């Protein structure tokens, strides 16, 4: 029976204000894959911790499917299935991603690179990428509250309802996830390779402006 890890990267199950996270998790929880052992893993940790979790596990996965939101310049709400093909990176380029990883930053790009370096990925790693808008927080991130200061009472009014567009995106993600789990790379049409060259580059922590380089600009800044 194929053993598959389904990782949600960037999902935080307690924050209902996000339009997709909790809905997606609930949708995936309702799915089943007979003939496959599927572990749904929350991967909202620094990638080094995830690597160590994989290293400590007795399970050797045949396939990993990651569902992650990205910003690669695609249309908002677009969902793309990609096949991780790895690639070579210089030592310091990997180390730069580890700088971020160990300080708690959650990033599917860092996870891919660091996982690759430490050899935790099986031959098949499919990434389902979702382009989300910048604004993804609901009412102060958490449930809408009704605060009655005169009585000192707080009650939860409810959760942000999911919009029809977000529902469509959830269904599309669920459908692609289902295919990725059941059929793997061979069963997905229009699979786009994802290599280290396609990842969002990290910017330097420190920008050094050399005095010879100073130029005039039109506005005083």
């Amino acid at each position, binding site marked *: 029976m194929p053993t598959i890890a389904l990782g949600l990267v960037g999902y935080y199950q307690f924050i209902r204000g996000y339009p997709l996270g909790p809905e997606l998790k609930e949708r995936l929880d309702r799915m089943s894959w007979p003939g496959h052992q599927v572990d749904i893993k929350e991967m909202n940790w*620094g990638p*080094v911790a995830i690597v160590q979790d994989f290293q400590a596990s007795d399970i050797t996965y045949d396939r990993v499917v990651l569902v992650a*939101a990205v910003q690669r310049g695609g249309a908002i709400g677009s969902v793309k299935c990609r096949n991780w093909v790895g690639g070579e990176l210089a*030592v310091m380029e990997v180390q730069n991603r580890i700088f971020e990883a*160990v300080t708690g930053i*959650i990033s599917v790009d860092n996870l891919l690179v660091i996982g690759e370096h430490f050899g935790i990925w099986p031959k098949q790693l499919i990434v389902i990428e979702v382009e989300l808008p910048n604004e993804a927080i609901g009412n102060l991130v958490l449930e809408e509250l009704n605060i009655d200061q*005169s009585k000192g*009472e707080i009650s939860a009014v409810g959760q942000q309802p999911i919009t029809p567009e977000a529902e469509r995106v959830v269904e599309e993600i669920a459908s692609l996830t289902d295919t990725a789990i059941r059929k793997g790379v061979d069963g997905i049409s229009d699979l786009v390779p994802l290599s280290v060259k396609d990842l969002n580059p990290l910017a330097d922590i420190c920008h050094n*402006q050399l005095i010879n380089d100073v130029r005039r600009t039109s506005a005083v800044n």
Partner: protein
Amino acid sequence: MCFENLPIEFDEDGNARLKEGVPNPYSYTSQTVEERDAYLADIARKNGQLNDVDFDPVTRVAGALAFHSTVNLKDRKVVDTASMATLFRGYEVILRGRDPRDAAFISSRACGVCGGVHATTAALCIEMALGIKPPPLGIVIRNLLLSCEYLYDNPLHIFILAGPDFSETLIRETNPEIWAKAQKAPAKFAKTHGYKTIGEIMTDLNPLTGKLYLEALEMTRVAREAYVLLGGKYPHPETIIPGGVTTTVTTNTMTEFYVKLVPFFDYAKRCIAIWDDIYDFMYEANPQYRHLGELPPTMVDFGQWDHEDYYDATYENCNTWGEKRWSTPGSMVDGKLVTTRLTDLNVGIEEFIEHSYYEPWEDYPFKTDPAGNPISPNHPWNKTTIPRPGEQNWKERYSWSCTPTWDRHTFEAGAYARVYLSALAQKLPPSNYFESTGKSLVLNLAKDKLPEMKAEWHVPDIWNAFERNRARAYAVAFNLMVTVENWVRAQDLIKRGERQVATPFEIPKRGRHIGAGFWGAGRGFLAHWCVIEKGVLANYQISTPSTVNSCPRTPWGEPGAYEQSVLNTPIIETNFKDETDFKGIDILRALRSFDPCMPCTTHVMVEGTDRVVTREVTTCACGL
């Protein structure tokens, strides 16, 4: 005499009051944009290269911290710096209006490295506000969690974050002449760490492949495994609440916990030996390194790890229980210890927003602290967080970090501050495992495979990047021995039949209550301040060590710690021809010596609107 700049004096009982006859006691003079322009123009004239200065704006450079430096390669000097926290996350806004019991869990999400420290600080803050005294075993278990956490945090920094800057890979590339010396230089402490030469150490510091690097990753995992026995999970422990912890403590748990600690006895000895060797060598190789990241030692720390016989959560007694902590609170200005009283530290704190993306606030509800000591309109109890996003402009506003000061000094925070202040103050409670001498901190490390060792951290004659890192290496041993001290205490309490780990409490629906959590993080100074009105959080303020270190300039133009230390840093890098291959390794070493952890202070960036945008770097970097 405690304060040099704030107009506060003390009576014979040690109570603070504003000096009489001082109009507008908390006023200050801000440096104007014109003055800033004139300063920059002066730099340009002195360099003889430009008639006026108009720097390219720096757009968002990194995910959280953007640091800009202007470097004169010919003179090998840094001439201007700006430290920018580029994201806004708004925990202070999120917590307004919430149930106080949420504070520990929500604020914990401020950081994916040290979620436990925020949870604990929030718990202490609510304890003080509502008068909740944890039982002794709850206090000791909390200490175990928060000392064990640093066994993960500090080795992570010295080997994974800062270590690569001293590896063969980097040194060979930036300063091949130093690498040549390192290969032949004998290691003085070879008996402890096993390396014959400095070069061998540097090879094993290589990122990704070096043995020391990989060992550190493994040891951080061991520390986390110990932590979760008591904390439930890491990061973001489940068991820290106001009033104590929710851990079920058994003899088995304590035994398993201790078993995880044992490898650290020898590891701590080796940390000290390795980094003493590396930094002593670097000084010998080039004495200019003594000035890398140099600052006069001005630090504030609230201390940490309460003594269960003294901590009662009250502000009234905080000076007593504060000075009985297993690391001593204090402030130090230019190397001189000023005070170890928590009330003095609290009274001297102000936060300024002139160079930050916040609106000024008008309210001044608290003229004094609960003990009647005067506090500033800029004190966190009086501060309201009002985000004001805008374009980056380092002559005006350029950071989402505000500027904390103590007695109007910018200051540093760090694990090294715990070591330094505890060493100076000579107020540590009696322990078999450590002792403060006034000039040093002595650490008694037990035998494991290596023999027992008495390690002694000495107050250095110069304070710079290497001494910050060195003190952090000693802090690994200090953290460990505090953990052992509290493990023994926990065992004694359990033997005496103590089982209660938390004090039940109710949230009062009426009245106004204020509290503060004076605590620390892996990177030092951490405090939360709260105001609870009619059962909900009316105000909540968080000041983190990275806020302290990465802050922008004060209104009167004094640079923050990062900014000033880099300004003082000489360019020692030799292996470059021109700007195209200049790496800036010395600037990076200076910055990294502070252990910058920008997720702690970063916020979600707003682009030209008033909406809060999701770039939460610890919970969801990608908005799913």
